[in-house]
């Protein structure tokens, strides 16, 4: 039976149930410990990404608390200077590379196929490969801290501090190899997401009917594609400077330390938007659902997302105002930095218009979004301040900057991420998160966050420098620092409550039905948690809010005729999503894991000997051949 159209028309009769059972068997992931290493379904991989990222978030958060503990009083002796530097470096690096990007990517990997009505992503095995790379790289990186060999040169590893002379030991080597390695996972996810969004959308979902979240993920993925290569090039150069004596950043031999800063920030600035843009997508989804009306200014919002993505590549130099750049260059980047507030403003106004006069349901996800508005707009305002050269040169390298970027990063990415967790948890787990714990969590996090980071503005204006492990009592910074530490503890309790909620509600939460929030997008058109195949029949859509318009039309349109005995999903044209072909997707396989292990051996070995370049290259190649080699019987149709 290849034609499942008529059979599934009534899912509840015997034939329909049997057909669905066959599809589900086809899409099932193997059970057991060894089965775990063969999973390729995007729902499994996406869940793993998010869970792993949250664990890394908790670890990096504890490191943040350690720093706050050390700074809570002048001349405190909780951490010695070197440990403090390691803790600070690992905190920043882990938050950026091990938490923020992978968490956003994980949510995207989980949701995008569901939102566009596909059965899986375009390259399921590559997805799995990316996850193992991320897991192995992240664990090795974090292990360096308890071993006392963690990098200590700050998350942006400025040369010459990070070169061999001033940072001996393995720390910076672990940073360069493992971060480059983890970027590979970010890049595979980006490629995967772009192609999935371009080619696997359900029939009828032309580009102008895509949910805003999917647009945001598309913009994020393109940004990753063009930003990550420069940090890879930079860290490869640093790696070679340290390991095989190249002279890229050594001024005495024709190198340039500033080259590092340019390459790093050409990545580093878009990076901020890489985690912020998908957060905008989450916010839009939540605003639309809890206002119960279509988004205001769809086209303006999409254009704003795209222009944020583009403009963010022209701002990197505002991290380098104090490096002695030409006046003309500084002015240009000052104007560009101020310009990004235009598309950001468009977004905020679109959300306000969507909410204006609507009967807003103040559920937990919406509360997180409202705290996002407050915190992020504050961060945006200080952003406009530090974008201007004269002001920036006053507060550069002070706690004012620390306050600013925590406001934009935590406010702009973590709060929306929390909104997303509360919003989509019922879909992924099949149970609702506890409302009461959620409300306490929002409240405590909001109060704790502002208490922790608002005083830092004042500390910065009073001249307290960043990256110091302690300060003298005569500076009078004790009280504000104490306040910040208390705030940090409250913030940790707030986030901790959500962590507990995530675990508790998986067992005790109220059972969620298909669409508990009455949302308009396709991820809510399947069971909670989704079927192995996502959709018993792939949907066909006529507009950008199918779940609201199907009841009005009185019928739901689907794809029929996909085979039940192998993994098939529709391929459609890029612009209009007209049916083009059917892609046959691969099933469970252990080779992505083996490839990831081979690649890890190569990367980790580089720290000890350049020969591992060859070992990693050919090791990975051999596993790729096993991965891609066609298995008999060859497919005939």
């Amino acid at each position, binding site marked *: 039976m290849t034609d499942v159209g008529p059979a599934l*028309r009534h899912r509840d009769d015997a034939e329909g149930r049997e057909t669905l059972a066959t599809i589900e068997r086809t899409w099932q992931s193997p059970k057991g410990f060894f089965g775990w290493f063969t999973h390729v379904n995007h729902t499994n991989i996406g869940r793993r990404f998010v869970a792993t990222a949250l664990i890394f978030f908790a670890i990096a958060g504890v490191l943040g608390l350690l720093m706050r503990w050390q700074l809570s009083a002048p001349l405190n002796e909780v951490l010695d200077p070197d440990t403090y530097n390691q803790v600070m470096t690992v905190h920043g690096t882990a938050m950026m590379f091990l938490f923020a990007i992978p968490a956003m990517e994980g949510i995207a990997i989980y949701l995008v196929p569901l939102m566009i009505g596909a059965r899986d992503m375009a390259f399921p095995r590559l997805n799995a490969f990316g996850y193992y790379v991320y897991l192995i790289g992240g664990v090795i990186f974090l292990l360096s801290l308890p071993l006392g060999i963690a990098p200590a040169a700050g998350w942006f590893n400025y040369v010459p501090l990070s070169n061999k002379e001033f940072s001996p030991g393995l720390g910076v080597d672990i940073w360069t190899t493992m971060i480059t390695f983890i970027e590979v996972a970010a890049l595979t996810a980006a490629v995967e997401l772009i192609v999935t969004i371009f080619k696997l959308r359900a029939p009828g979902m032309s580009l102008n009917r895509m949910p805003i979240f999917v647009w945001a993920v598309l913009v994020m993925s393109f940004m990753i594609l063009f930003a990550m290569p420069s940090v890879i090039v930079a860290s490869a150069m640093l790696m070679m400077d340290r390991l095989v004596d190249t002279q890229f950043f050594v001024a005495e031999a024709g190198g340039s330390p500033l080259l590092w800063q340019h390459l790093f920030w050409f990545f580093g600035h878009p990076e901020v938007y890489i985690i912020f843009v998908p957060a905008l997508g989450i916010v839009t989804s939540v605003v639309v659902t809890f206002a119960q009306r279509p988004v205001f200014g769809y086209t303006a919002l999409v254009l704003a997302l795209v222009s944020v993505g583009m403009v963010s590549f022209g701002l990197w130099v505002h991290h380098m105002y104090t490096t002695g750049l030409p006046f003309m260059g500084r002015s240009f980047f000052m104007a560009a930095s101020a310009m990004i507030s235009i598309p950001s403003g468009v977004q905020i106004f679109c959300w306000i218009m969507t909410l204006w006069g609507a009967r807003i349901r103040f559920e937990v996800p919406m509360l997180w979004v409202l705290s996002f508005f407050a915190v992020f707009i504050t961060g945006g305002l200080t952003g406009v301040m530090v974008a201007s050269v004269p002001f920036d040169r006053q507060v550069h390298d002070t706690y004012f900057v620390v306050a600013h970027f925590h406001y934009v990063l935590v406010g702009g990415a973590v709060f929306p991420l929390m909104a997303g967790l509360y919003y989509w948890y019922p879909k992924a787990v099949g149970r609702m998160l506890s409302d009461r714990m959620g409300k306490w969590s929002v409240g405590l996090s909001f109060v704790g966050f502002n208490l922790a980071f608002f005083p830092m503005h004042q500390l910065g204006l009073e001249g307290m420098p960043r990256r110091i492990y302690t300060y003298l009592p005569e500076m009078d910074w004790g009280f504000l620092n104490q306040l910040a530490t208390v705030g940090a503890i409250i913030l940790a309790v707030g986030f901790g409550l959500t962590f507990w909620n995530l675990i508790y509600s998986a067992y005790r939460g109220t059972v969620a039905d298909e669409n508990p929030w009455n949302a308009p997008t396709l991820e809510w058109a399947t069971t909670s948690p989704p079927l192995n195949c996502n959709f018993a029949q792939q949907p066909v859509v006529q507009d950008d809010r199918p779940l609201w318009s199907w009841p009005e039309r009185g019928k739901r349109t689907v794809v029929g005729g996909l085979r039940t005995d192998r993994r098939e999903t529709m391929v459609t044209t890029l612009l209009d999503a007209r049916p083009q072909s059917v892609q046959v997707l691969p099933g469970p396989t252990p080779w992505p894991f083996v490839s990831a292990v081979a690649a890890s051996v190569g990367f980790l070995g580089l720290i000890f000997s350049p020969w591992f370049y060859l070992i990693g*290259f050919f090791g990975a190649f051999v596993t790729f051949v096993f991965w891609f080699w066609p298995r008999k019987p060859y497919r005939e149709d």
Partner: protein
Amino acid sequence: MTKDIPVEVAVDASDITRFAPHTHPLWWGILAAVAIEAAVVANLLTSYFYLWARTDAWPPEGVEPPPLLWPTLILVVLPLSSVTMWWAGKGSDAGRMRQLALGVSASVLLACVAIGFRSIQIAQFDILWSDHAYGSILWAITGFHYTHVVSAIVGTAAVAILAWMGYFTPERQLGVVVDTLYWYFVAGVYLPIYLVLYWAPRLL
């Protein structure tokens, strides 16, 4: 509830092709991979000029730009290997599988020749990567492209083996199509590298 709404089959997929090597998502995936690699090359070449702009003498005193003979020969061999690759693809589109096998094998051989020339040329560099930033970036860009040619060779060798085994058909030839796309990139990206490494220090 969505599931209670009556269903209508609006698209019947039973007759839609399962083979579409020229519009397959993997084709787009390789294109994205090429975009990443191109961004890496752009970063490397920009770094080359940035380092140059911040140095007095480029190449440093007493160092000559690399000789032109071998790189120029590679500039002939790599496009030639792309032609054989294209010819192989023509063959497999038309069902002439022998032409496919011959074509990809010829490309592998030509690329091996290119690698041979490249190795001779590297041996002729009169500066080491550890002597000066000029040497570092020269070796890094050269090594980067060398690695890419080698990975194109080993990947295409696997395709050639499959071709001689008779695996491919005009429908079942996704491997050929995407390998060709990557091959064009590896051959094509040599042109900017060639101009920057061998002509820029002579002309600018």
